[in-house]
């Protein structure tokens, strides 16, 4: 099995006085190394969950893979994606990969969208920014994708600005942008944490369907093992910047080896429709 993504001894350090929330622990002097010796592989089409509590380093890991680490954080090690080392890529090549081969959706779709541009145009821009010369073609593709991710009344919604959409609609727009160029890897960082549970269920379903349809690899980051359980075959548990478990999701639920994994399992509410209770 050849790997799509191979992370080898990735380490992220924060020098002194690093700005930004991502490094709040560091600012408080409690931790200077955000990630220690992270190594794992992902095959094409594989679904992997990254789970850990706040501050465990899961968002920094996702950002490092995308080359979006906040200024001042330093990543060392090797991150090989489709045979290329992401950490040593020049900006131009990285920008080309990002969006076209690998894409990301974030927790808060409102801050990830441009407030002054209609959302349909923002999705279409994804295509034009990556070389689609035909503007009409880009708009048509954008509309088709908005429909695919389950946005109700896509013609109407595409004409709106981000603040005129609900949280769930905004997350579908981000998903459409991420999926538009058919990336082979999608990184989703807490894509449903800001949403109602009913909307969360719908968004996770779209994510799963698209993953299956396209054979896309999915790296799903969440603090909640319950969210990951139904979507990812394998789960990596992060704790204080280290991988403490990397196993089949089922195995983590049935026989967690590390105390932190056990705590995450215990925190998952085992409820569901009547008759399905564990």
């Amino acid at each position, binding site marked *: 099995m050849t790997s799509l993504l191979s992370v080898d001894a990735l380490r992220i350090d924060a020098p002194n006085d690093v700005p930004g929330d991502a490094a709040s622990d560091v600012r408080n002097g409690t931790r200077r190394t955000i990630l220690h010796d992270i190594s794992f592989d992902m095959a094409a089409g594989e679904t992997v969950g990254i789970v850990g509590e706040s501050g465990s380093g899961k968002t920094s890991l996702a950002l490092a893979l995308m080359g979006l680490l906040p200024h001042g954080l330093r990543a060392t090690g090797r991150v090989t994606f489709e045979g290329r080392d992401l950490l040593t890529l020049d900006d131009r090549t990285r920008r080309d990969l990002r969006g076209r081969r690998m894409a990301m959706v974030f927790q808060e779709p409102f801050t990830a969208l441009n407030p002054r541009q209609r959302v349909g145009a923002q999705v279409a821009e994804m295509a034009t920014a990556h070389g689609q010369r035909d503007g009409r073609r880009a708009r048509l593709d954008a509309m088709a994708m908005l429909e695919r991710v389950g946005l109700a009344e896509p013609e109407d919604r595409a004409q709106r600005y981000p603040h005129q959409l609900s949280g769930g609609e905004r997350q579908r727009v981000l998903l459409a942008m991420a999926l538009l160029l058919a990336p082979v890897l999608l990184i989703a960082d807490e894509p449903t944490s800001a949403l109602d549970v009913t909307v969360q269920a719908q968004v996770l379903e779209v994510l799963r369907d698209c993953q299956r349809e396209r054979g896309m690899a999915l790296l799903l980051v969440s603090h909640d093992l319950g969210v990951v359980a139904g979507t990812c075959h394998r789960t990596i548990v992060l704790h204080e910047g280290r991988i403490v478990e990397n196993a089949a999701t089922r195995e983590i639920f049935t026989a967690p080896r590390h105390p932190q994994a056990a705590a995450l399992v215990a925190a998952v*509410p085992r409820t569901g429709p009547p008759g399905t209770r564990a």
Partner: protein
Amino acid sequence: MSALLSVRDLVVEYPSPCGRVRAVDGLSLEINRGETLALVGESGCGKTSLGRAIVRLVRPTAGEIRFDGTDLLALSGEPLRRMRRRAQVVFQDPKASLDPRMSAGRIIREGIDIHHLATGAEADARVGRLLGEVGLSRSDAGRLPHEFSGGERQRIAIARALAVEPEFLVLDEAVSALDVIVRAQILGLLAALQAERALTYLFIAHDLSVVERIATRVAVMQRGRIVECAPTRQIFDAPAVAYTQSLLAAIPRVPW
């Protein structure tokens, strides 16, 4: 069983560019002394408006709210202030609800001063005890909100609410912004405080799974009304209304 809080035919409306929006639409409910009533519904169903109306942070358009027999909406001035001490709120986002320039100790002490509950060394001692009660240490009194984690900030917000010795707490999505492990810890803390202090809770949440362990009864709210209200076990085992069933079905299922 006596009702500490009783809400009758409550209407809360807000002005908007397209006329008045009705957030709470003729709603009635009772909360018994010492119980935890969970109020569950999706964004926009009116649950926060109801919670705010109950502590008089928004003024209802119509209806009646009785707290321990007293008509809350008829109160003003000093009697309202005295009533406010008895019913406190903890909000979702402690980053936004705590003054970033005030130390944890001052935040907790402010209510004690306002309600003249203690002065000087006695007030300081109370602040110290409260910090201990919510699982922080006395030495945390001098630290500012940004120096704490999200879970610790929520502990400060709880200590602030408890400082004026209320009987009733509105917990408005008080654990929604926390990760699952910290969430479980705060839920445990709330349960312990309720037992020690004989508190009554209105626990507002969008996620039914969060309330299962803490609620005595669950009220499910949709479009400004209560569509189902029953003991927690009954809501989970035999939900009567399709909307409640859909909320239950949305909880991520773990196949193992």
